[in-house]
């Protein structure tokens, strides 16, 4: 490249970078603001967050609150995702329990992945779909992540699966 074309390349390069920066910042701020303030969504309403009112009253000795309700021997939990959190959080189940997660996204599409138990499911916006997971037999805390990029806070979107020891009969 001669000096003239090198200068031209640099000018166009800087202009292009400035334009890209502006467009990207604008489009990403749009993604966050247009989806995070859903007026119909009440973050404090347990019914909307999949926590059955009866389940709320169930307190385990550890202080954790079991999620969802047990129907026909299987724990059923409405599990929702929003920018940038999961609900209920933590998701609390018993060790070894079969859990039916009825997953749904409240704003844009998310995904739920629990790497330590090799569980992954997409969370569509329009419908609640079922995903079955078998809780680990080892009690403890297992991090939950969003598997579909959902905006600038995606990397920080985390939840927790808390596995409690199975109660003795």
């Amino acid at each position, binding site marked *: *490249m001669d000096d003239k074309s090198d200068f031209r*390349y*640099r000018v166009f*390069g*800087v202009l*292009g*970078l400035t334009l*890209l*920066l502006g*467009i*990207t*910042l604008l*489009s*990403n701020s*749009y*993604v966050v603001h247009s989806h995070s303030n859903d007026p119909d969504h009440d973050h404090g309403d347990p019914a909307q967050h999949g926590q059955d009112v009866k389940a709320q009253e169930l307190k385990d000795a550890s202080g954790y609150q079991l999620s969802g309700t047990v129907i026909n021997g299987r724990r059923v939990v409405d599990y929702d995702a929003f920018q940038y959190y999961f609900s209920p959080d933590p998701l609390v189940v018993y060790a070894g329990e079969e859990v039916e997660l009825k997953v749904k996204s409240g704003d844009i*599409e998310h*995904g739920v*992945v629990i*790497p*330590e138990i*090799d569980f*992954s499911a*997409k969370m569509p916006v329009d419908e609640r779909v079922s995903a079955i997971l078998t809780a680990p037999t080892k009690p403890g805390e297992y*991090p939950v*992540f*969003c*598997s*579909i*990029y959902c*905006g*600038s*806070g*995606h*990397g*920080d979107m*985390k939840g927790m699966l808390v596995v409690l020891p199975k109660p003795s009969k």
Partner: protein
Amino acid sequence: MKNKILKSPKVQLIAALVLLAIVGIASDGDLKKLAVFLFSVLTCLFTELIFVGKPNSQKIQSSLITGMIIGLLAIPAYDFWFVYLAGIIAIASKWIIRISKQHIFNPAACGLVIAGYFFIDQVIWWGGSATALLIIIVGFILLNIKRLAMPFAYFGTRVLLSFMLGISLESALLLPNLFFAFVMLVEPKTSPSRQIEQWVFGALCGVISTLLFSLTQGFDADLVALLMMNLLLFIYRQRKSNYDNIHADYY
């Protein structure tokens, strides 16, 4: 000497990636991110040392970059098997899948895609969240080494195709795409150096990744598109070299 090291694009990119990691870790103070980042870097470094035998600064810098990219993309969990496998495959692919002393596939993309077949949804791109930092710092590194045409062509095509396919514009310009285009797409060994070829390479990668994205909604689409383009570039280079050799015989 010190000045020469600081002027090296590889060293500048390493510094930028470290900065991205710091910003990503500081955003929520999650030390698992630091753990996965360091583990990935060490895995790539040691694997490189096994292959290279005698350490040299260029190879070490390359393996550091590969390790950092994998570390910035992988899910920050205490289960390191995915990162371990991705790191080993990435460096091994550089040494095993090579012709005429040149590797064919982008090492980080190769490691992440192959390891991704064994571990589901492990790539969450946590390290690419600092938009301004990426565009300004990495953008100026690319400006200096004259490799900006690829990200520009990639984004131009993504925006255009997203519009044509009815995909929202925001989906074309999300932060993982930015990290992908500014850090991975432009790897010198597996991408073209001539300006016109860079435009074509970036644009085709944009086409493939947008089509794959519209089918899968996953950002692994970018990585798969890059591997496909690496292969196409290799075939193109082989044909061009054969063509040049045949025509050289006439003179």
